[in-house]
């Protein structure tokens, strides 16, 4: 066959197409294997949480929830300022610094408020992450992909709520290794972690750990669905959110 430019291009095209096919062929011989969403998965357009601080406001109550959450997610307790926290408690002025008033009701000044990642609508942590290790899912949960986190801590600087913790050391040094939750991984040194709205529980059709443990003081649901439990309580009671003036649109609401 005479070598012509036309022939050359024809064969170049075929071999290029072959190159594209090879990885796919390698992926799985039959090519039928694929992933699907769990059948029981709880779905929402925008997950949100409403915390009734009339019912849930003491250090002990919040600690009980934090312990359950931390145990489930293998979050270590480190007795220094290098501690890791997914759920913690704070005073009114720490939680809502710009909504503080003079001469507040004593009872309010004594209340403790459960704090966690707000899973913001416009999360600054996601915007600054150079590797997209922290990302926003379609249901607006701000999730962490620890495989990708390079520990630059931009997200910690960007989050105005202090919701993120850095693993300064191997967390396993401070975990009871005989009493781990084998259904959830630990983290490694050098990554940033935070509350994940229990995505792994939602995927199996269950509500977040703190919600189930709260005896009704925390409701969880789809903010876009007028019939969801969160919308029901939002209709009934006055709520505030943390640092609304920053425009991050937190997904955690507090009934005062």
């Amino acid at each position, binding site marked *: 066959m005479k070598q012509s430019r036309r022939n050359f291009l024809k064969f170049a095209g075929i071999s290029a197409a072959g190159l594209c096919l090879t990885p796919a062929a*390698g992926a799985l011989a039959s090519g*039928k294997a694929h992933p699907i969403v769990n059948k029981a998965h709880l779905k929402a357009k925008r997950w949100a949480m409403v915390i009734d601080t009339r019912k849930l406001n003491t250090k002990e109550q919040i600690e009980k929830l934090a312990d359950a959450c931390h145990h489930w997610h293998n979050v270590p307790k480190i007795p220094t300022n290098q501690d890791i926290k997914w759920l913690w408690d704070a005073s009114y002025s720490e939680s809502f610094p710009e909504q503080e008033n003079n001469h507040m009701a004593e009872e309010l000044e004594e209340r403790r408020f459960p704090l966690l990642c707000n899973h913001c609508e416009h999360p600054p942590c996601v915007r600054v992450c150079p590797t997209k290790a922290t990302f926003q899912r*379609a249901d607006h949960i701000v999730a962490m992909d620890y495989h990708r986190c390079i520990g630059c801590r931009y997200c910690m600087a960007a989050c105005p709520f202090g919701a993120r913790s850095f693993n300064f050391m191997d967390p396993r040094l401070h975990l009871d290794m005989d009493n781990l939750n*084998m*259904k959830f991984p630990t983290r490694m040194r050098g990554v940033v972690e935070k509350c994940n709205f229990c995505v792994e529980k939602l995927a199996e059709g269950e509500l977040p750990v703190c919600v189930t443990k709260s005896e009704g003081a925390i409701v969880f649901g789809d903010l876009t669905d007028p019939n969801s439990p969160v919308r029901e309580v939002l209709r009934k009671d006055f709520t505030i959110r943390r640092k609304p003036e920053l425009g991050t649109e937190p997904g955690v609401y507090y009934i005062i």
Partner: protein
Amino acid sequence: MHYGGKIIAGLVIFLALVSLPFWFNLGSAAYKQPQVELPKNEKNCIESKEYMRAHHMQLLNEWRDWALRDGERTYINSKGKEFTISLQKTCLRCHTSKEKFCDKCHQDAGVTPYCWDCHVPPKEAK
């Protein structure tokens, strides 16, 4: 060609050096595939043995993105069977010894995957 002798001598030394590892291994036992401990209560892996041997790392890589980033946590294998996408809840439930299964080949191949920095391997029976 008045450098011929030197060039040939140099070539011989070079070839001897390059093939040194072969001389060293001459006569030593041939490479044997490591004997891994297979699960006792499970006959089939999620895909064929051959596929898993060659591609488990790609599969795990896909699994992690599907589960974590796409929220798709159920795997339909090439035969249409369902599995939960999870290293800890699926793989390590059958392969109950990291030492007698994973480590065997990884040590031979000289690779140190860091999966277990985070994913908890089952406790080794002492």
